[in-house]
């Protein structure tokens, strides 16, 4: 049974929102931990976290101070922030509510439950003692939802669009983290306190739950070039850009009419594979430009998928006529 374009779009975005909620929860949790290790005077980090999620402008409109309380509230529970965990979960739930007929009932129940738990927890407040529990529940709730999809949804179009959404969001999030975090790390002068740099590169890895895997596979002390290489180019790390894009390519190949989108993803994969990471580490601006290009490439990929599979019929007809 061929899938409705509207349903495909819903599922694609649903998977993106769940991934976004989980990634944001990881990011906030790791930043929390890092802050405990850093001396108070360390400028960092909370505003950098807001930058990663692309919410700086919204944040400035809603809050005066980028302190931990405000940033936590903004990133976790503020429904006025479309990128907050709660907003992402609300969107995921709403998308699934309109497409409940195509996924196993347990997936909907898990998503619904996760959203209700998140609402209840955030209403009770996200003070210091509670935030860890909240974030862990979000992460495990998202994992469980994905596990249910993995274990119950047939290998077919619905799963394909969910994989696409998840992998594109994941690649996007990884590049964002690299951009903001490494920018602030690399630009620092040689006189800066080294021990903290080491801690911060560890936190970059931990944001992606990649620290242990890094240790297993790289077996070196944590260094900028190695971390960047690992997170950009490793073929086996679930959250590396290369792995995410490879999974997205494979998903695309099972869809009809995939030429345009496949060309877009192939381009980004080539850019990542050919990157001279050592050179990028020596030039923070170069790294920033490189990641900017990757983001544009991911945008093109999304656009190709949207035009091929989601566009309303009228627009599709106009497009083919033009």
């Amino acid at each position, binding site marked *: *049974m*061929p*899938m*409705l*374009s*509207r*349903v*495909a779009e819903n599922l694609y975005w649903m998977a993106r929102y769940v991934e976004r909620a989980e990634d944001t929860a990881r990011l906030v949790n790791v930043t929390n931990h890092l802050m405990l290790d850093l001396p108070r005077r360390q400028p960092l980090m909370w505003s950098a976290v807001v930058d990663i999620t692309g919410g700086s402008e919204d944040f400035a409109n809603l809050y005066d101070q980028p302190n931990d309380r405000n940033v936590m509230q903004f990133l976790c529970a503020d429904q006025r922030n479309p990128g907050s965990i709660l907003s992402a979960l609300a969107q995921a739930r*709403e998308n699934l*509510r*309109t*497409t*409940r*007929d*195509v996924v196993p*009932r347990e997936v*909907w*129940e898990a998503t*619904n*439950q996760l959203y*209700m738990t998140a609402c209840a927890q955030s209403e009770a407040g996200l003070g210091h003692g509670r935030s860890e529990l909240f974030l862990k529940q979000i992460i495990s709730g998202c994992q469980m939802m994905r596990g249910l999809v993995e274990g119950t949804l047939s290998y077919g*179009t619905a799963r394909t*669009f969910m994989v696409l959404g998840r992998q594109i969001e994941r690649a996007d999030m990884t590049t964002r983290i690299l951009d903001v975090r490494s920018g602030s790390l690399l630009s620092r002068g040689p006189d800066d306190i080294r021990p903290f740099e080491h801690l911060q590169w560890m936190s970059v890895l931990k944001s992606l739950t990649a620290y242990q895997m890094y240790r297993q596979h790289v077996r070196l002390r944590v260094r900028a070039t190695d971390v960047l290489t690992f997170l950009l180019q490793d073929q086996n790390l679930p959250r590396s850009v290369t792995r995410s894009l490879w999974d997205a390519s494979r998903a695309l190949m099972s*869809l*009809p*009419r995939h030429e345009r989108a496949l060309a877009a993803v192939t381009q980004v994969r080539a850019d990542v594979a050919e990157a001279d990471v050592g050179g990028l580490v020596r030039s923070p601006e170069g790294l920033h430009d490189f990641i900017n290009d990757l983001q544009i490439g991911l945008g093109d990929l999304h656009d190709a998928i949207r035009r091929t*599979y989601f566009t*309303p*019929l009228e627009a599709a007809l106009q497009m083919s006529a033009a």
Partner: protein
Amino acid sequence: MSRVDWQQYCSNEFYDELMAAPGMPREAARMLCDVLAGFAPSELAERKTAAEIAIRTMGITFTVYSEGSMIDRAWPFDIVPRIIPADEWRRTEAGLVQRVEALNLFIDDLYHDQKVIKDGVLPAEVLAKSVNFRPQCVGIDPPHGVWAHICGSDLVRGDDGTLYVLEDNLRIPSGVSYMLENRNVTKRVLPELFSSGRILPVDDYVPQLYDMLVSMSPRHSDDPQVVVLTPGIYNSAYYEHAYLAQQMGVQLVQGSDLMVDGDDVVYMRTVRGLTRVDVIYRRIDDDFLDPEAFRKDSVLGVPGLMRAWRSGNVALANAPGAGVADDKVVYAFVPELIRYYLDQEPLLANVPSYLCMREEDRRYVLDHLDQLVVKPANESGGYGMLMGPHATREEREAFAERIKADPRNYMAQPMLKLSTTPTLFDGRPEPRHVDLRPFILSGQGSTYVTTGGLTRVALNKGSLVVNSSQGGGSKDTWIVETEMVETGVVEPGLAETRLTETGGY
């Protein structure tokens, strides 16, 4: 708090579905009442909580509009089921089948020869002023001559114990998903009661619905494309639309997902491109179904859908125009229609009705407004009614003027003493009024009735309003065998004969 004490339960002058008298359960309800009385108060509370949790996690909701915003509410549910003995249900079922068969013949007649009017059974005036008669449908022959494939008739029980038909919903009746979900929740909450095997299952509805829809397909392929057409997530019954599509394994589509091409064929827009659609279970009102044929401003429907239907390229359930028999004035004629079309006596009673278009009835209605319920002919969901005994004098006078201005549009019925059934409040059963909506499917040469139906309950004390948007709730409906059915034992001699016949050469 003490255990459930049925001696304390009293429904006064109302017929009670479960209790013949305080402390005396009806036969079909005895097992249930005993089990409930055996629960410790904490256990009863736990079961109730379990039901609430099940409903929340299963996400069983309905949607209400409130001051311009949309709220998705948990489905209000009471764990004490309502029980009907199986032998009574079989008679009721036969009456519903008879009724819906007559109604389908009636609708088909109205869009063809209108013999019913020529023969003087239905006054021409009733048809002339029917707002749900669609001239666009005249002369059309839907598959198997069926117009109302899905009918939801509302039944109520009076204080004499008789089940009356209160109305027939032939447009897009809803509620069947809640009937099915109520059973799922009840099975989770009171599993021990199902082990006796006397409670008849309800699960058959969805396969029956799907088979019926498939049988309507204009293309004789093995795998016709069936879809459910919804107005979208803001519709109060969206939950049900999604549920039915999911359970049938078919696409849930919105108007914007479909298009009709120049050859009058319906397609849906998919990731593969355009795919032909054969059967549409539509949950959009006639008015909004096709802006080319009905309301021009509709954005919910599909332009050209009526062209495709008329050309026989797509089947629609229910057929457009079926609502003509939904008219509450037509309702009063149904017993006559059964006699006229089937040459049978009606098996189910109508609620006594007064038609304001008849002078004598009108005079009676105007003189007794304080005792009657007055209904406009073509509203649904309880809108636009006058509840005479509860209305103020000013309201009654204003209503009298409306009746005089347009008598054809109004009918009246005595205020019914709806039956009650035990419903839990603070761990105690209290009598609350109920109705029942069975669903009837009409397909190729066969008619199917759900086992029981959706029981709706007025949760507010003394209230007769069962609509979920107005403080109503629901409960599971059990059709219960009171006598053990004889198990089919094959006579030994017969079995032996068969054996020799098959093995005999």
